């Protein structure tokens, strides 16, 4: 059932891939605007680069997450799947995994933009990829749940960030700190602790949200 759900999500993402480009442009534009706010101070740009990267990804994620349920609500297609019957948890994890992959791709695509704009390069690319993957997982699990909750209300674009942002502060904080240590250097070896913390938050989010999703869509 999970395979069927994931296959459907990936197919839908592929068919609406032009939106992914729009989201990337939105994220890249955010990074550009942040650089204007700091001005031509190379040291400060480099110092704040990790925060800006995650802020750009966070803002872009609200578009991606909301869109993932928009297609489901057009003809009540999601209700149709539930009535087949499909397991709500499988539908959730299918969607959350697809959103996670999309956000990871987006995060990876924004890294070169960050390097160019903020001169914030690093040689620890594998470590950075792991942090982006874990951070994107921290965004997508609760993001998919809340996108499901808000998909049926009128003010969904406003409600989703309002509900999501406070919940993901710990994961976001860990992502920013870990990324910052990778870019600016980690003489004390602190990044491992932040990555572990991020992984722990992901575990909690992915378990809890999967359990709650069934109640959210059925009740």
């Amino acid at each position, binding site marked *: 059932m999970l395979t069927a759900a994931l296959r459907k999500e990936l*197919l839908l993402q592929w068919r609406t891939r032009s939106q992914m480009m729009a989201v990337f442009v939105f994220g890249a534009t955010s990074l550009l605007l942040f650089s204007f706010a700091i001005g031509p101070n190379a040291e400060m740009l480099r110092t704040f680069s990790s925060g800006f990267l995650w802020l750009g990804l966070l803002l872009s994620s609200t578009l991606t997450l909301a869109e993932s349920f928009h297609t489901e609500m057009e003809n009540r297609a999601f209700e*149709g799947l539930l009535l087949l019957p499909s397991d709500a948890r499988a539908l959730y994890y299918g969607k959350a995994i697809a959103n996670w992959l999309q956000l990871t791709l987006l995060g990876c695509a924004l890294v070169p933009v960050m390097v160019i704009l903020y001169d914030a390069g690093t040689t620890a690319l594998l470590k950075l990829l792991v942090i982006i993957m874990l951070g994107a997982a921290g965004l997508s699990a609760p993001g998919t749940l809340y996108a499901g909750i808000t998909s049926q209300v009128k003010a969904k674009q406003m409600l989703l960030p309002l509900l999501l942002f406070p919940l993901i502060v710990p994961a976001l904080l860990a992502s920013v700190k870990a990324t910052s240590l990778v870019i600016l250097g980690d003489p004390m070896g602190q990044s491992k602790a932040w990555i572990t913390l991020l992984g722990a938050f992901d575990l909690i989010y992915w378990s809890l949200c999967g359990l709650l999703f069934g109640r959210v869509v059925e009740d």
Partner: protein
Amino acid sequence: MTDVSIDVQGVARRYGRRWALAGVTFGVPAGTVVMVAGRNGAGKSTLFRVLATAIRPDRGTATIGGFDVVKHRQDVRRMTAILSHANYLYDALSAKENLHIVADHLGVSRGGVMGILEQVGLASRADDVVATFSAGMRKRLSFGRILLQDPKVVLLDEPYGALDPAGFDLVDEVIRELKRRGATIMMATHQWERSAALSDAALVLEAGKIVFEGPADQVASC
């Protein structure tokens, strides 16, 4: 196919302060076709959505094949298919892909999908995205979805809506086929004469209440 009956006892459902269903009680014997008539807003769609487990009743109980629509939702869903006003289709995907998704989630082979598209007259448009389809074509595809489900109970909400004359014949043929397979069928429609010819009994709803229950031909002659 094992025959499955429907039993509805005092089911009521409200939207805000308005009762869409105000306590309806009836039974549908296994393997029969029941026409549900009534004006717009009489409660037909709400009744079907309750029976399909899309929404919960505020009062009363309903069972399908002995399974309660609230307590045993998944069991009811396994044997029930609904043709709803919402067609449950993904606009961005093709007709074939939409049915593939249904097949994958049901755990049945994709092999039968093209045959079903042929049956509902959409084989030549199998690879076209649903966004380019007319309302009638979407309805045909929704029928394809129901055929793929092979349900024991079928709830058809306005099956003739948006269809051309050839589509009307298609609906009649699908209903006959489902009946041959032993399915219990309820259909809400305004095509009274046409539906009465296919139905064993009829219900008439008015303001969420049953005002007539009896032979289908009596409704058609109203």
